């Protein structure tokens, strides 16, 4: 099939404004009479608020108002949770505990960064000055930051509602793991730490709120992935009528899951604007962002894999402590359960899976989705354990993977965790990756390099992810508190120009380009005639937003539905005017033709004109040309792939560098390969960052030690190489575009690939396991420890041999 736009690397229509400095991000919004807000945040991880004294601060220059949690207690409500695990669902032991989460704390603070007061001034510098003058008297309480230790009897308790700091116990059992382990010839056990990460979208969060006393309208500009849900939740929490709240997501400078929630600051800024009847702006500082914006991952897992000596894997078992932070962020309970536990079958046919997850509260920043969200954690375990299993058997990791792959399927396949994959061919990306990477030659190079102080290693990771969030009924049965369908409107204007309104809300993914490609393809008009609008609740119909690699799978399908409706109407008009039945009219090259009589046609613009002038429409047809659709998918989509990482470790210093990276992804059909490659690149860098250098560290007292960009190592251009990407194509049967979603793949596969590579480089020294991140010190200690152990073993054997000789004498 030849296409005009689909499958083409069209340059992005977003870019001209962004490369000239004309994009409008939240901090670029300026309103007449706008005030600036600074938040007073707790410096303690756990404390009772005894007294807040604002008298010094309120006398400071430029201060307009100060609000404490107590001042606004009745207005702000409690931050909601949008994913509720209930006993009624088969995976959940008891109804999860959802303690109140006041946007401004008024009794207790539970993590460093918990906001206690808001200072509003007529200049941002003066607001910050005055915030420093608010005196808060705290009574310090015990602190726990470790997600597993939090469950111990003597741990400090965060919420009376959640005994043992446990929010939920969730499990999934497929087959009979214990039985399989008993029969297995090999069982490998390993503890894994999937360290806490800080998302680090380059734009921090920010909110501007305006209140119109005449119309009672609150307008909120916020850096978010979900403007419609923010409006809904804002209205639900504050009681301000939903129809009088407008939420605008302007240009959003990256998010990666960290802007996927209703945040305290959205409520606080909005309600203070309402109280003062003035526009108010709050822009998060970076160090503030590290405390106040959600973190990701933070799992402690005990893993087990079992199977037979011929390389057949028969089962997998994990017990995970998922640190949720001090309060539940909007989707927090869904991430380490549904998006993690249900993914533990990987691309494999092992029939026995057992997973138990404890979600726990600690005195740390709340944890929620971060790129991949649950799937990187699951893939990390599966792929590292498959490697460990292969190593235990001294078998090749690729061969063991191949032996255990699910066979190819086109339309639905259930796996041990109980979920139904859409379509898959798991050997294909492995084969392709091995065409790009000469495995044999590498093994030779690896052996030869060993004497030179350079340790080379190769790591493989296959993966599967769950995308296209989500079939609403399935999601609801698993805890989702909202429908997860998506919407679109296609408005064809009288001149033939088109506006597409999407309920998705991009933050770097290039939806304006990709959706225009889809619309241009269907309507046969140039992309310049199409504008894609998003991120404004007053302009678009309700939509869910952008996360979980759902925008093209669910939002794109909603768009195709509207395009079809528009075309159908146009076909009817053309048929009517050309005097033939509609079924005899075909649309091609921007024209409506009568089948078999090519000279009889009406072009796109003419038919649009007819729809609006309404002089001669089919009987009963309404004038105008616009369609709206809501699409709820029948299943998720399940992209997969195979990534290969090659690392080089300096034997003397432990410094570990990524030398080469090959990524073969199967995300179904592709609309814009250039954009997809870009997302894969970015994802890989984040996954590599986790493996080699990133990690949020809390001190015992709950202070975030990695509290600024100086201490948290976001990868730079020098830390990563260029990447080699390719694709195989297994179209998804669950949507008409055959797409699967591309936003998270790189992050999911990269961390295990890099870690497997590092272990491959070190295994000959006897090193079997390391946790992320592979800082030089970690690796250096491991190398030296392993060498010392070898030496000790050698001298022990020598001594034994000597004494053996003596004894014989």
């Amino acid at each position, binding site marked *: 099939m030849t296409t005009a736009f689909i499958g083409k690397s069209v340059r992005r229509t977003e870019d001209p404004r*962004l490369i000239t400095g004309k994009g409008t991000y939240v901090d*670029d919004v300026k309103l007449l009479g706008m005030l600036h807000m600074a938040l007073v945040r707790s410096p303690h991880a756990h404390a009772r608020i005894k007294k807040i004294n604002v008298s010094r601060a309120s006398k400071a220059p430029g201060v307009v108002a100060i609000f404490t949690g107590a001042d606004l207690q009745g207005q702000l409500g409690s931050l909601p949770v949008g994913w509720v695990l209930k006993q009624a669902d088969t995976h959940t032991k008891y109804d999860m505990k959802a303690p109140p989460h006041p946007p401004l704390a008024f009794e207790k603070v539970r993590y460093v960064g918990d906001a206690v007061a808001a200072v509003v001034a007529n200049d941002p510098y003066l607001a910050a000055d005055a915030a420093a003058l608010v005196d808060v008297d705290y009574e310090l309480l015990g602190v726990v930051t470790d997600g597993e230790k939090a469950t111990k009897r003597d741990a400090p308790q965060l919420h009376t509602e959640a005994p043992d700091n446990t929010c939920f116990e969730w499990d999934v059992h497929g087959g009979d793991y214990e039985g399989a382990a008993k029969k297995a010839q090999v069982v490998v056990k390993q503890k894994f730490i999937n360290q806490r990460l800080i998302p680090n*979208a380059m734009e921090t969060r920010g909110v501007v709120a305006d209140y119109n006393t005449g119309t009672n309208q609150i307008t909120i500009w916020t850096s978010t992935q979900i403007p419609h849900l923010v409006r809904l939740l804002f209205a639900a929490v504050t009681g301000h009528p939903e129809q009088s709240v407008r939420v605008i997501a302007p240009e959003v*400078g*990256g998010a990666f899951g960290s802007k996927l929630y209703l945040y305290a600051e959205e409520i606080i800024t909005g309600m203070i604007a309402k109280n003062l009847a003035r526009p108010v702006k709050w822009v998060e500082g970076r160090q503030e962002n590290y405390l106040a914006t959600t973190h990701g991952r933070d799992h402690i897992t005990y893993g087990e894999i079992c199977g037979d000596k011929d390389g057949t894997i028969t089962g997998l078992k994990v017990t995970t402590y998922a640190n949720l932070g001090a309060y539940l962020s909007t989707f927090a309970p869904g991430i380490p359960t549904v998006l993690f536990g249900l993914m533990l079958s990987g691309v494999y046919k092992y029939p026995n899976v057992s997973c138990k997850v404890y979600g726990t509260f600690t005195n740390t920043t709340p944890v929620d989705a971060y790129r991949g969200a649950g799937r990187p954690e699951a893939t990390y375990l599966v792929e590292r354990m498959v490697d460990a299993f292969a190593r235990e058997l001294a078998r090749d990791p690729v061969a063991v993977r191949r032996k255990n792959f699910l066979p190819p399927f086109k339309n639905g396949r259930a796996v041990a965790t109980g979920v139904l994959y859409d379509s898959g061919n798991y050997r294909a990306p492995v084969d392709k990756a091995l065409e790009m990477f000469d495995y044999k030659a590498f093994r030779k190079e690896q052996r030869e390099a060993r004497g030179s102080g350079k340790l080379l290693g190769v790591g493989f990771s296959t993966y599967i992810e769950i995308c296209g969030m989500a079939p609403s009924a399935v999601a609801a049965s698993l805890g989702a508190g909202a429908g997860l369908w998506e919407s679109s409107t296609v408005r064809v204007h009288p001149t033939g120009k088109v506006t597409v309104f999407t309920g998705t809300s991009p933050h770097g993914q290039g939806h304006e380009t990709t959706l225009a490609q889809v619309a241009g393809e269907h309507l046969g008009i140039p992309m310049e005639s199409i504008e894609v609008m998003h991120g404004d609740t007053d302009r678009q119909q309700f939509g869910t937003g952008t996360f979980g690699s759902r925008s093209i799978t669910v939002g794109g399908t909603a768009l195709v539905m509207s395009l079809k409706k528009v075309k159908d109407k146009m076909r009817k008009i053309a048929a009517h005017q050309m005097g033939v039945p509609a079924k005899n009219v075909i649309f091609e090259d921007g024209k409506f033709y009568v089948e078999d009589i090519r000279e009889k046609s009406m072009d796109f613009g003419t038919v649009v004109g007819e729809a609006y002038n309404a002089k001669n429409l089919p009987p009963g047809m309404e004038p105008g040309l616009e369609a709206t659709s809501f699409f709820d998918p029948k299943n998720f989509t399940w992209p997969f792939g195979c990534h290969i990482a090659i690392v080089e470790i300096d034997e003397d210093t432990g410094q570990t560098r990524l030398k080469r990276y090959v990524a073969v992804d199967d995300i179904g059909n592709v609309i814009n390969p250039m954009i997809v490659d870009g997302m894969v*690149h970015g994802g890989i860098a984040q996954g590599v960052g986790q493996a080699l250098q990133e990690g949020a560290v809390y001190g015992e007292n709950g202070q975030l030690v990695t509290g600024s960009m100086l201490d948290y190592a976001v990868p730079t251009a020098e830390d990563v190489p260029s990447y080699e990407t390719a694709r195989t194509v297994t179209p998804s049967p669950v949507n008409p575009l055959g797409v699967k979603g591309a936003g998270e793949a790189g992050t999911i596969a990269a961390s295990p690939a890099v870690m497997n590579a590092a272990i491959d480089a070190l295994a000959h020294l006897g090193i079997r396991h390391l946790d992320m991140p592979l800082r030089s010190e970690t690796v250096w200690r491991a190398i030296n420890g392993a060498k010392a152990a070898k030496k000790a073993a050698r001298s022990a054997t020598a001594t034994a041999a000597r004494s053996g000789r003596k004894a014989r004498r």
Partner: protein
Amino acid sequence: MPIQTQITVTVNGTRHTNPVEPRLLLAHYLREVLNLTGTHIGCDTSSCGACTVLLNGKAVKSCTVLAVQADGGNVTTVEGLAKDGKYHAVQQGFWDKHGLQCGFCTPGMMITAVQILERNPNPTEAEIRRGLRGNLCRCTGYHNIVEAVKAAAAASRAGGRKR
């Protein structure tokens, strides 16, 4: 009233004279006083480079320069890169090679790239990566940023030969 100092700065070819607080950062001067919001602020520790501008021909992190230090100086921001309705080779490279996603790091990235190419019109990939080390991007994984800088270098060299 806080103390104010008068400064005169030429930004993208236009002279501006304004009273400013001595503690005002150049980044805030550009964004708040001159309303040139293309220069972004991504951190508070001089780490991210989103705020990079050219000050007297040198790439600086404008969050780490006081506005008063720029008094009498010459500043180029992202808004000043295109000339006579034509993109700078670096802008063109970023567009053609998909060197940006969310676009937040992009203004600072491009200004740094301009400086890299001014100092070395034919940089290797390693030199480009070294030069970009002070600018963080979370979206692109740097791959296409490097490609964009390479493309800009090639285009500038070709343009130079034509002249």
